[in-house]
């Protein structure tokens, strides 16, 4: 696909088209779809982590005024496919994790549904469960591949020999916690089964992809895809957890089919989301580096141990970034999984890269410390010429530019490298840096249609806007591809009635959908020239991605951290990121993506930690009072900048995905800055005061 050279709308700081609807609250989210006669669904969850349901007494629930039906494995319809055991709602009595759905109540109000769900009596035959992830478990296994289809292990050269021969080495183990995506809008589905003819299912679902959701649900129910419609104009955040349908979507559809003609509303409670809507697995990362005295890395190894659920495998690709980040003749990365009795892990913002740039970016700082070398210089010294592993040329790689630009903006040159020597009042002050990276992903399929309606070029594609700015940026792309003012372009997204779009995942949305829009615009101009008749229409689809180049975005994040000498409290008054992510379509929405990702990275560094009690298999801090995420007062200055980067190889727009890179590396930069402030290396996230206090005393 040829590069779009003449741009007028791309790169402009346009306000969000859905802005007014969002500040008013008139944008309609899934649960809110106005429908007459809607009923409410409330799940009953298992209180054991492993075993069987032996008794389900629904008498009291059914006796309640307003209860319409109680769904159980005995009464729910049989699904056509139960291959995905996460989605096999109410198909058998087995319990694979605590919080699994064992029954559900449909009632004419939410209060009654919830009350009745509490009246369902469940008896169990409990089996011993295991939830604890440890690197010394004897049941660890190597998955066939890691998400989505990367090899589990890689090896080049001889790491052990190179470590033994290296002049300076570091060998440390780092851990990241279990995290929950917690989008502000709880996962919600409104479902309607129209029994006319062969029947038709409509789902108003909070999803990052209407078409992928339709494909999954149609196959679970054995319906043709043309008998299912999924609608989602607005998503109240997803961060990966709405990238694939979870069991509640199946449950809502089951309930709708049990009550034909009645819309059924289901919104998970915040508490239910901790077991039903996916999470990020905790990880244990043994990171080893060997180098010569000049700082040239000769050995690099990352061995990852992480968790999946016994009922469904998800193998986070934590070792992935270490495969291509820095040069080293000897390199090894491995993934080992423990399949335990825990809820099903899944995608969370930058799966793989986000946890996988914690250990590797702190170990770089530790190596720099041992070498007595500046951590930025160490990174620059180990810059590869071609992509390690594949040997492919980079389409563009500006990590060094990001580090240098960030250093100058942050004032890095004045830094005294010694830890624990700067005190301002009761606070120890330090600074730290880490790199960021994220691949340029493009999905294999997406189609867009452009039609002239009067004065307006209507662009249709079933894409999603999770707050990422799609409503605003796709028109900018269409306008430039058509050569018309952006005010003459209208987009329609978020509906399977529109042309097929891939999931908003892997930061691939704009790259994939934008490419389809450019194809459609070119087909439109090729067919109709510059004087199209009213109603003129053309369609375009993405072709095969070009595999010649290694394509990644890069960034550098700088952190100032303060540690209280008496309490060990950590504050981060300044976060600064510089990114090289191709052409920026809209600087306003892009900046929000970067600062949002960086702030979520700060949240991961300092606050987030899902505490799973091994005795019960229950995430005990399962709400927003106890699962801490950054609040306004936790965040001070967060700056995002970017380099002008011209990359004609990524796609016609020259853009790279930007939704995830902001969270990559932040936690490492925070930990590095905390070390510089107070001299304590925190290798286990989150960086909380209990880990600092013993050394401060």
């Amino acid at each position: 696909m040829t590069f779009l050279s003449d741009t007028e709308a791309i790169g402009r700081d346009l306000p969000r088209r859905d802005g007014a609807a969002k500040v008013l609250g008139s944008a309609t989210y899934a649960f809110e779809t106005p429908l007459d006669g809607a009923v409410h669904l409330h799940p009953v969850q298992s209180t054991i982590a492993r075993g069987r349901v032996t008794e389900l007494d629904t008498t009291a629930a059914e006796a309640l005024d307003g209860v319409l039906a109680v769904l159980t494995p005995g009464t729910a319809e049989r699904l056509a496919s139960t291959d995905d055991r996460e989605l096999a709602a109410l198909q058998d009595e087995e319990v694979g994790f605590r919080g699994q759905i064992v029954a559900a109540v449909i009632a004419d109000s939410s209060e009654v549904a919830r009350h009745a769900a509490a009246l369902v009596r469940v008896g169990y035959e409990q089996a011993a469960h295991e939830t604890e992830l440890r690197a010394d478990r004897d049941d660890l296994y190597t998955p066939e591949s890691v998400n989505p289809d990367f090899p589990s292990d890689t090896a080049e050269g001889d790491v052990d020999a190179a470590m033994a021969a290296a002049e300076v080495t570091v060998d440390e183990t780092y851990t990241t916690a279990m995290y929950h995506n917690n989008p502000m809008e709880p996962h919600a589905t409104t479902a309607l089964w129209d029994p006319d003819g062969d029947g038709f299912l409509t789902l108003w679902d909070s999803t990052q992809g209407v078409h992928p959701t339709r494909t999954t649900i149609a196959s679970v129910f054995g319906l043709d895809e043309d008998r299912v419609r999924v609608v989602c104009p607005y998503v109240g955040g997803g961060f990966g957890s709405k990238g694939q349908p979870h069991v509640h979507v199946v449950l809502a559809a089951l309930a709708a089919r049990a009550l034909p003609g009645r819309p059924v509303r289901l919104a998970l409670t915040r508490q239910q989301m901790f077991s039903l809507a996916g999470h990020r697995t905790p990880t244990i990362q043994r990171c080893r580096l060997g180098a010569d005295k000049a700082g040239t890395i000769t050995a690099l190894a990352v061995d990852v141990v992480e968790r999946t659920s016994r009922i469904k495998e998800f193998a986070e690709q934590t070792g992935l970034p270490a495969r291509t980040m820095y040069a080293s003749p000897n390199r090894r990365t491995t993934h080992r999984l423990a399949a335990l009795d825990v809820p099903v892990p899944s995608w969370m913002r930058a799966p793989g890269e986000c946890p996988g740039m914690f250990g590797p970016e702190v170990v770089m700082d530790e190596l720099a410390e041992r070498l007595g070398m500046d951590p930025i210089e160490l990174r620059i010294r180990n810059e590869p010429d071609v992509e390690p592993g594949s040997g492919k040329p980079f389409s563009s790689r500006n990590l060094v530019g990001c580090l240098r630009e960030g250093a100058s903006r942050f004032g890095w040159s004045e830094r005294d490298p010694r830890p624990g020597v700067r005190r301002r009042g009761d606070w120890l002050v330090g600074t730290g840096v880490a790199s960021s990276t994220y691949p340029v992903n493009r999905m294999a399929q997406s189609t867009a249609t452009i039609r002239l309606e009067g004065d307006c070029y209507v662009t249709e594609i079933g894409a999603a806007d999770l707050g990422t700015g799609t409503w605003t940026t796709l028109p900018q792309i269409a306008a430039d591809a058509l050569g018309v003012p952006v005010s003459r372009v209208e987009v329609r997204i978020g509906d399977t009635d529109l042309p097929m779009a891939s999931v908003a995942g892997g930061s691939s949305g704009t790259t994939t959908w934008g490419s389809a829009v450019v194809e459609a615009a070119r087909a439109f101009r090729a067919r109709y020239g510059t004087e199209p008749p009213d109603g003129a229409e053309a369609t375009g689809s993405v072709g095969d991605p070009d595999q010649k180049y290694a394509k990644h975005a890069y960034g550098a994040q700088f952190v100032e951290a303060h540690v209280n000498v008496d309490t060990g409290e950590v504050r981060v008054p300044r976060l600064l990121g510089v990114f090289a992510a191709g052409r920026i379509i809209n600087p306003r929405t892009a900046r929000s993506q970067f600062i949002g990702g960086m702030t979520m990275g700060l949240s991961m560094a300092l606050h987030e930690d899902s505490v799973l009690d091994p005795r019960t298999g229950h995430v005990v801090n399962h709400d927003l009072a106890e699962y801490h995420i950054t609040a306004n007062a936790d965040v001070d200055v967060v700056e995002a900048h970017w380099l002008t980067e011209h990359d004609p190889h990524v796609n016609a727009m020259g853009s790279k995905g930007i939704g995830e890179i902001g969270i990559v590396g932040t936690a490492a930069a925070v930990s590095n800055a905390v070390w510089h402030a107070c001299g304590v290396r925190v290798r286990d996230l989150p960086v909380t005061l209990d880990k600092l206090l013993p050394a401060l005393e």
Partner: protein
Amino acid sequence: MDTEITVRVDGVPRRLTVDTRTTLLDALRERLGVTSPKKGCDHGQCGACTVLSGGQRVLSCLTLAVTQAGAQVVTAEGLASETATTDEAHEQRHEQRQHEGTHDGTHAAGRCLHPVQRAFIDCDAFQCGYCTPGQVVSAVGMLDEFARGWPSAVTSGTEAPRLDRAEVAERMSGNLCRCAAYVNIVPAVQQAAEASAARTSEGAAGTGVAR
């Protein structure tokens, strides 16, 4: 147990039957179809459900609907129409014409946004928008509290506080934003406060807070 109550919602008296367990949030969203206030946690932990009741910001998920009989409840949607003056409406429509890209009309057609809402758009103080109506209402309530001299946890001394970053961030910390638009929310609130102050000193409309 069911009870009949009348609540004024965004200026319109609404008569409805509620279960005595029903929260104000569920009454608005599920019984009246007023979905501007959002449910993020249902436990008073996120602020997405913030509305004004009697001019003060309250968490509607922690407020039982029966306690609101006769109350004046204002949501983010209601803030817009409430503050419209002819001049502002004119000015705003003009501005919108200047902004290519807001033409699609489904959004804000004929609506006059509150200064806080306009500042949120100007500063891109949101992404997914789910926390946003709560943030907006909370900011309006907070600016009124501030104007009345209420201190916050970061207010030092006894002098009247300035609406600096720390004050805004502290006073807005009951409203979580998972998209993490915080660094844009703070300037948006400050910008709205300045806009209101400028108008007040010109003797035009006030902050638009319903009392």
